[in-house]
């Protein structure tokens, strides 16, 4: 039966007294497959605790649906700058993504190249560890180096170190307008070159991706500034071909939502990998994969530093991870293919690093009751 504590204290009690391992669920929209037998939902831990637009700070209960948070921010013309993706289309899930799940997965979208990841916007956390102790770290202010930064450690720990109950986030103003420059017909190698050209310009590019809609470059800000930068980028990128500028903000938003959520893969079968590597290595890496006998569908984000791969063949994990030995980087198995068996979701870490991670997990969850086995 689903545990659904209505308060932090109830959550602490539930963890303390659990006889078996727990499978932590936020909105059940990003389940990467925790193995705990008892589902525990954070749905009862919602609510805005504090929102000060003038201080760019938001404190909310971890169970709050992300959509509600985004709506409240939008009312003040603000937003989560790291552009959290919605994985429901990708994973075929149907829950309501929560803020806690977003933080636990350090979910960040295309704007990561300019505005940082979720972990960079995370100012403070409260969580319950594997022994049922309530722990806080960080706070609600934007600069804080008081003691160790467990805030970062919790972001991306996928519920294996503690169950988040409350998070403080730095929010940013939403821009007055946005424009997208598009190039079409570029090879992967040329696309990375074009994106690199844009990202190494002084024009404060907030997105650089390559997929079904071609090669896309985004600029955001006040209208005169966006117009100025768009024009300069258009000139700069013209050596790669005809540059088409999308000025309509809603059309731009739709293009980037598709990149963010990897819409190109929705409704299609096959394993999905998320590969992080140096942009300059991306094209060579993809060439190596093809040489190895596979032909994945590819969406590039972060100027080529992030590759989304949808595999066409079966059991290609060895290839995906193996080819990274040459280029460096790591691959996460976001959606298992039919023949992927029990391949670890997360990229295996070198022994001394894995030793530290395991040590931390033992300290925060000595009984191994929080999403055991999920991360190693």
């Amino acid at each position, binding site marked *: 039966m689903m545990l659904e504590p209505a308060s932090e204290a109830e959550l602490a009690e539930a963890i303390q007294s659990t006889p078996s391992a727990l499978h932590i669920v936020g909105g059940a929209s990003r389940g990467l497959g925790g193995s705990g037998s008892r589902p525990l939902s954070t749905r009862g831990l919602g609510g805005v605790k504090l929102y*000060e637009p003038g201080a760019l700070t938001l404190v909310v209960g971890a169970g709050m649906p992300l959509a509600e948070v985004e709506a409240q921010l939008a009312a003040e013309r603000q937003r989560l700058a790291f552009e959290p993706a919605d994985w429901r289309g990708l994973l075929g899930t149907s829950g309501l993504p929560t803020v806690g799940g977003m933080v636990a997965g350090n979910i960040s979208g295309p704007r990561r190249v300019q505005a940082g990841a979720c972990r960079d916007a995370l100012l403070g956390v409260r969580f319950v560890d594997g022994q049922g102790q309530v722990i806080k770290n960080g706070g609600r*202010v934007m600069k804080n180096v*008081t003691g160790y*930064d467990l805030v970062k450690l919790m972001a991306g720990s996928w519920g294996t170190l503690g169950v988040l109950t409350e998070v403080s986030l730095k929010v940013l103003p939403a821009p007055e307008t946005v424009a997208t420059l598009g190039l079409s017909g570029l090879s992967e190698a040329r696309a990375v070159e074009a994106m690199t050209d844009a990202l*190494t310009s002084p024009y404060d590019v907030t997105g650089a991706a390559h997929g079904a809609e071609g090669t896309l470059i985004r600029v955001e800000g006040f209208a005169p500034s966006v117009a100025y930068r768009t024009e300069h980028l258009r000139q700069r990128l013209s050596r790669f071909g005809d540059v088409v500028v999308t000025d309509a903000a809603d059309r731009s938003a739709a293009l980037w939502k598709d990149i963010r959520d990897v819409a190109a893969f929705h409704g299609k079968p096959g394993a999905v990998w998320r590969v992080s590597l140096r942009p300059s290595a991306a094209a060579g890496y993809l060439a190596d994969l093809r040489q190895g006998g596979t032909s994945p569908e590819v969406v590039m984000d972060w100027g080529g530093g992030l590759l989304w791969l949808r595999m066409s063949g079966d059991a290609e994990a060895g290839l995906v991870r193996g080819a990274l030995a040459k280029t460096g980087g790591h691959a996460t198995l976001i959606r298992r293919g039919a023949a992927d068996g029990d391949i670890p979701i997360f990229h295996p870490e070198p022994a001394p690093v894995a030793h530290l991670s395991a040590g931390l*997990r033992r300290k925060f969850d000595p009984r191994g009751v929080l999403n055991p086995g999920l991360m190693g």
Partner: protein
Amino acid sequence: MQMPDPSPRILAKRERVIARLAEVLPKGAVISDPDETRAYECDALSAYRCPPMAAVLPATTEEVSAVLTICHQEGVPVVPRGSGTSLAGGALPTADSVILGVARMNAVLEVDYDDRLIKVQTGRTNLSVTGAVETDGFFYAPDPSSQLACAIAGNIAMNSGGAHCLKYGVTTNNLLGVTMVQMDGTILHIGGPYMDAPGLDLLGVICGSEGQLGVVTEAWLRILPKPEGALPVLMGFDANEVAGACVADIIKAGILPVAIEFMDRPCIEACEAFAKAGYPACEALLIVEVEGSPEEIQDQLRRIKDIALRHNPVEFREAADEDQAKRIWLGRKSAFGAMGQINDYMCLDGTIPVSALPFVLRRIGELSKDYGLAVGNVFHAGDGNMHPLILYNANKPGDLERCEAFGADILKLCVEVGGCLTGEHGVGIEKRDLMTVQYAPQDLEAQMSVKDVFDPQWLLNPAKVFPLANSASRRFDQGKEVAA
């Protein structure tokens, strides 16, 4: 501020430890002559001094590993050191410790403009990282005021910030990977030239761990293309409240300046007397800097001016050229020097929610009267990071203690209003005993358990960050030998 008594067990084997270190390091890299170890007796919190047992200056990661292996076997505490500019006593030695300085490790290992990365050895100074890439139009964003001297090593250990972090973030937001040596000599690579790392965010917890988890020898840093230009404006207000409201309105209007600096009257007066920057005589002064092309700058400044004028500034000064821009920054940049001219000073570093600014400044004014010590406030107003500078006289018996008590009251006030003890300088020894004000015992226990994993014997910089009473049981083994 108390430090633990040196362990007789360690002092007794001083000669042996020094001889073993000399075996693994080049000539001249082990410093043990008391005349020379004195150079390492303190950092920029110079009220506290204690020469170490020895200091070593390795030149490679492997040498760092060799040093740590020996110290680990001998049970000798090690205090890592960059440039020694910590204001928190983070690099303060104990008499039974070895200082491990990374100053000789200052090479640039790789620059990659396409991937917007630089890899350096961590002894390299902050400013010279930008120095290595600026002719090609790039820069390294975190810019602590001490950037000419401080090393990337210390920046990572303290998660240092700077005037421009409102837009670009602090060290942790610009750090992609490290090579780090654990206390037992194990060499680790964590993160790397990618925008995220697999597994737990160990890099995130290493950054800001004040030299207690490992010795960081190399770092992958993010570099950025330089903006086309930048320009500051200066505005004066007749009340702190009004200046605070103006900052909030600028931010609510969707403008994100690269810097918003705030100075209060005592600070303005001191700077004016010292640097003669031509600041207006007023209660509160803001310097707001924006970036972009000339047209973009003018557009943003026009928006800022509209907002500022609604708050009736006593002065709104734009810079017509480079020279006038320099003059606007001149006073702010010499603030510490100016206060230092008047007296000895202690620089605090708490952060508060921006909305609490008027209340906190009023309370600091009252405390200043109670303690009979003058205080000036410089403040990164966009992010709430305050730097109250308390003036005292080091030669007057009791003044330092009074100043410390005053400082502690200010930091407690920061926590009370929802802020924290330190925004960028770190805890070190300075705020160590105040940690219980901000954190409950289980919060501190969780942090200490991270150190247990990285450094089970608690040999790395052990007497810092956590109140000595809280860490005592973990430090008891020091001096005990570990089988090789």
